[in-house]
Structures are given as C-alpha cells and as structure tokens.
C-alpha cells in the first residue's frame, strides 16, 4: 500500500467521520450472546433442541397435588408457582419451594413483591398482592426492623360464573405475619353455592360474622420464638439444600454427573443458576442456560441490554402442545420479560396473558416501598364495622370448657 498524500488522508478521515454519524453498524453483542456462542447451535439439532425438560410438567403437577389448599390459597399457590416457575423451574417438592423462597430471602435487597391481576385458578378470578420482607440481619438499612422477615398477602377472589365449585364466592382475604403482629382479615361478600347448600350452618355463621369484615388476631397463636423458628427453618432448609446443591454442582463441574441425594443434577444446576440470578452474580453462561431453557419452550426469545449492566430477557410464543389441556389454556399465550441487573440480580419479572382472563403476574425485588401501615391491622380496627376476634383467647376459652369443639361434636353425634 503506497503512502497517500495528506490531503487524501484528511478527506478520507472527514468522510469517515460523516459516515460514522450516519451509517448504522451492527450492535455490540451482549455478554449473554457471547456466552451462547460456545453452545452447540440449534441448527446442529434440527427442529428440536435436545434436553427439553419436563419442568413445566413438574410445576403443574406440584400445583395439582395441592388442591387441598383453600380457593384463595390455591390461587395464590398456583400463581406463585407459575410466576416463579420460569425463573426457578425445579419446584416439584415443598422443600424446594421453601428453598426457592429461602434463596429469595437471602438474595433480596428490599423484599419481594408479587402483584396478581385477573389470574384465573381453581374456578376463581384472583387479584392481589404479596409482599415478602427481607429477614433481619440481611440488610437492616432497607427493611423496617419490625417488618423484617414479614409476609403480607392480600387477595380478592371471585368465583367463576354461575357453575363450578366456587361459583358465588366473593371474598377479600388479607394476612399479615410480622414479628410484631400477626392477623388475618376476611370479608365474605358471597360464599360458594356448594358450601351454602352442604354446610348451611357454617355458611350462615361465616355470612353473619364476616360479611362486614372479620379480623382475627393471631397474636399469641404463634409465639415470637416460633415465628423466629419458622424464619430460621426456612433459612435452615435453604442452607441445607444449598449445601446439597453446591455438592451436586461440584460433581457436575468435574464431570461426575449423577444426582446427589434427592436433588438431580439438572435441578441442582438450575437452582445454582437461580441463586446466581437472584444475587446478581450470574455469569453469562448462566443467563445463556436460562435462555436455552426458555428457547426449548418458546419461539421468540431475546436478550437486550437497556443500559450499562441492565438486561431485559423477553420470551413469547411458548409451545405447550406436549402438555395437558389445562396448561395450554393457562399458559398458551404467555409473554414474559425478566429484568436482570449485574450485581443485583433479577429486579423484575412480568408474566402477561395468563389464562382465560388475560391475567398478569408481576414480581419486583427492588424499589419496593416497605410501608409499616400496610402490615398494620389498625385500618380495620378503626372502621367501626369489623368484628374482631382474638383467636388465642377463643382457643383458651374452648380449652377451659373442657375439650375442643371436635370432641363436643363427636359426643353430640354419638
């Protein structure tokens, strides 16, 4: 290449500056793309990538095996499972549910807030909010001391249509458990027709007591040390399970494979990735594995960097044709986005177009306002219509009458 005159090079330089301002150049590949490059390409497998897991089936089975939960509770359970399934897909045992939430608690900066809109489950439409507060000692600056480790659930469940088990149900339920106070509020505007027919006394009692609102003080039911034990048990279960997972993951890393105890190699790997996602320490390969998992279920998966260190993973076009009809009906139109912040973890997840009511579930782990008034029962005490019962007192009264109600009923029917 011969040297060119200065004038030519100067023109070349000026022209390239002009071009650089106007010519769109392909975007920089993000860290997830770069990690993905070292995976076998989809084209190597033809139409069906290998390793499609039955994780969705496992999650749905988990929901189905817990039909004994109350209507509102099962709707909450179903939506929590669905909402967290795609982030933490190895939930097929209760202990793993505890592990997941234990992991959540450890990794959360503020807490976890889940908002449900028009989620249809078990024959009811559910709207509501769930707030889990970081346990004490994890980040004392961000959690109110008296709320640390607390849990708040607010649900409105309305029975579906005029037929079905829960037709006629219309209930507000709020539960708040914190170290300082524990209470449950319920307002039954309508009961399921089936209960009203089969248990008229119970229905009448509930209607009379709870149509204007019923507040049960649970203080004293759970002693402080029992509450601490529950929180510790969750952390303890989490620690035990994470030890199992770490050992299983090490086995995977050195190529020994297999499963460790009750945790399979695949589940161990997925829980490790979930833990990394939650804590913000996930490597590009981890995100890539999550993308790979999603790609085995969805046709439109993308990851984009929205700002320095912040990535949004989107997925839609899920294919549940191999699942049962119920799963397809609930999740067939699902579209999800997950926001991941390096060093922080998953800060938000949105799941949209769920079920027959086109519902949504939103999860937030950062920017949550922890309002002590939310967890306070005072708003129900002061409205003048709510009936207030001290459950511990009621139980003591029942005991002092010489037995529990079940025994009295049994005696009565003999």
């Amino acid at each position, binding site marked *: 290449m011969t040297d060119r005159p200065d004038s030519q*090079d100067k023109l070349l330089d000026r022209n390239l500056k002009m071009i*650089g301002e106007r010519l769109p150049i*392909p975007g920089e590949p993000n860290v997830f*793309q770069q990690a993905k*490059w070292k995976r076998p*390409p989809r084209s190597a497998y033809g139409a069906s990538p290998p390793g499609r897991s039955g994780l969705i089936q496992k999650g749905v089975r988990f929901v189905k095996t817990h039909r004994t939960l109350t209507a509102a509770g099962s709707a909450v359970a179903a939506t929590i499972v669905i909402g967290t399934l795609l982030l933490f897909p190895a939930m097929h045992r209760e202990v793993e549910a505890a592990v997941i939430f234990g992991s959540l608690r450890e990794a959360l900066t503020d807490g976890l807030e889940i908002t449900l809109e028009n989620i249809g489950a078990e024959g009811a439409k559910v709207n509501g909010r769930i707030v889990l507060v970081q346990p004490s000692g994890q980040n004392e600056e961000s959690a109110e001391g008296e709320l640390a480790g607390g849990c708040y659930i607010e649900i409105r469940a309305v029975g579906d249509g005029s037929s079905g088990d829960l037709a006629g149900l219309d209930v507000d339920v709020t539960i708040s458990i914190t170290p300082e106070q524990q209470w449950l509020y319920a307002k039954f505007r309508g009961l399921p027709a089936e209960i009203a027919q089969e248990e008229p006394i119970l229905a009448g009692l509930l209607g009379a007591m709870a149509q204007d609102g019923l507040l049960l003080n649970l203080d004293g039911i759970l002693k402080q040390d029992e509450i601490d034990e529950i929180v510790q048990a969750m952390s303890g279960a989490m620690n035990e399970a994470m030890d199992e997972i770490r050992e299983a993951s090490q086995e995977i890393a050195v190529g020994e494979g297999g499963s460790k105890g009750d945790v399979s190699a695949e589940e161990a790997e997925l829980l490790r990735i979930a833990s990394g996602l939650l804590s913000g320490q996930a490597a590009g390969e981890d995100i890539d594995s999550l993308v790979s998992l999603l790609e085995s279920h969805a046709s439109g998966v993308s990851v984009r960097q929205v700002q320095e260190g912040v990535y949004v993973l989107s997925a839609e076009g899920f294919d549940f044709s191999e699942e049962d009809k119920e799963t397809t009906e609930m999740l067939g139109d699902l579209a999800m986005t997950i926001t991941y912040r390096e060093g922080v973890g998953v800060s938000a997840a949105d799941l949209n177009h769920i079920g027959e009511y086109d519902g949504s579930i939103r999860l937030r782990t950062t920017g949550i306002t922890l309002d002590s008034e939310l967890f306070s029962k005072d708003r129900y005490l002061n409205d003048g219509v709510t009936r207030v019962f001290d459950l511990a007192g009621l139980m003591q009264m029942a005991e002092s009458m010489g037995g529990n109600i079940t025994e009295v009923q049994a005696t009565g029917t003999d």
Partner: protein
Amino acid sequence: MDAPSGALRGAEAAFEKHGRSLYRYFAVRTGGDPHLADDLMQQLWLQASRSDATVPEDQMEFWLRRIAANLIRAHWRRESRRPAHVPIADPRLGGELADRLANEELPPEIVERREVRDQLLLAITELPSGEQELIVAHYFHGQSFAELARKLGLSERGVEGRMYRARGNLREKLKRPA
C-alpha cells in the same frame, strides 16, 4: 471437545479476542439477523474448537475468518434464495467509493443509498479485528485518540499511525472485496 487442550486454548483465546468483529462480519452478511449471526458464531466455535489443525497464533484470526467465510457461503447455498436486503459485494461500486472517499467531500445523502451502505459495511467488517475495532471505536462510537491510546496502552501517535493504516486498508477492501 476433541481438540488437544493446547490447541483448544489457542482457539478459545482467538475466538474471544476476535469474537466481536467476527459477529459483525456475520451480522452484516445475514442482513442484520442477530439470531442467525449467533447461530453462525456457534457453528464457527464448533468447527474451531474441534479442529485438529495446528494453527500458529499469529494466523489464528485469518484461520477463523476463513472458516467464517465458508460458513456464510454454505449457509446461503443451503437456503433456496438470499433475501434482497442481504448485502453483496460489488467491486465496481466499491472501487468508485474508495476513490471518492479519498478525493472529494462526500455529501451526507450518499449514506442513505442502500448499495453504498452495503459496500461500506462489507468492507469495514472485512478488516482484521484490530483495525476494525479502531475504525468502529473512533468513527462510530466517537472515541478520541487519547481514549483509544489509554485503552490500547499506546501513545496517541501510535494510535494515529494505526488509524492511518486502517483507513488505507478500508479503501483496499472496498476496491477488492473478498
């Protein structure tokens, strides 16, 4: 992976060093399809990591680019047709552009012509990764010589010299596309 560990490490290091510029190479030649570009990068890694070839380190990039060129050619051969928006090299137009770049002040509207954009992108992504990163960083991302000097551990004069050579090489790529 089947390759001996030393060769694999070399391929891995080269892949990481030149990955961004190789990705751009695929992205342009797939008409801006990021998923297809990613798939081709995966294929590139698969081939590179499994190869038994002993490639000297200073020729690694050339070797990877040759594999990349074969992959993109094979891809479009397999497809029944190449979409209209996928750039194709035009030596005649590229040659004209190379001359005009060095001899006249180009009007900005010229960049709006698709065929001009295509030739520029093909030529830029044909450059070796070191020169390509310089051109992209300075002209497209606005990084100054001082910033580039700090990033590369060079003097500003050193960066000027490399940029001079990169500009010249770009004109050559326009005139004689691969």
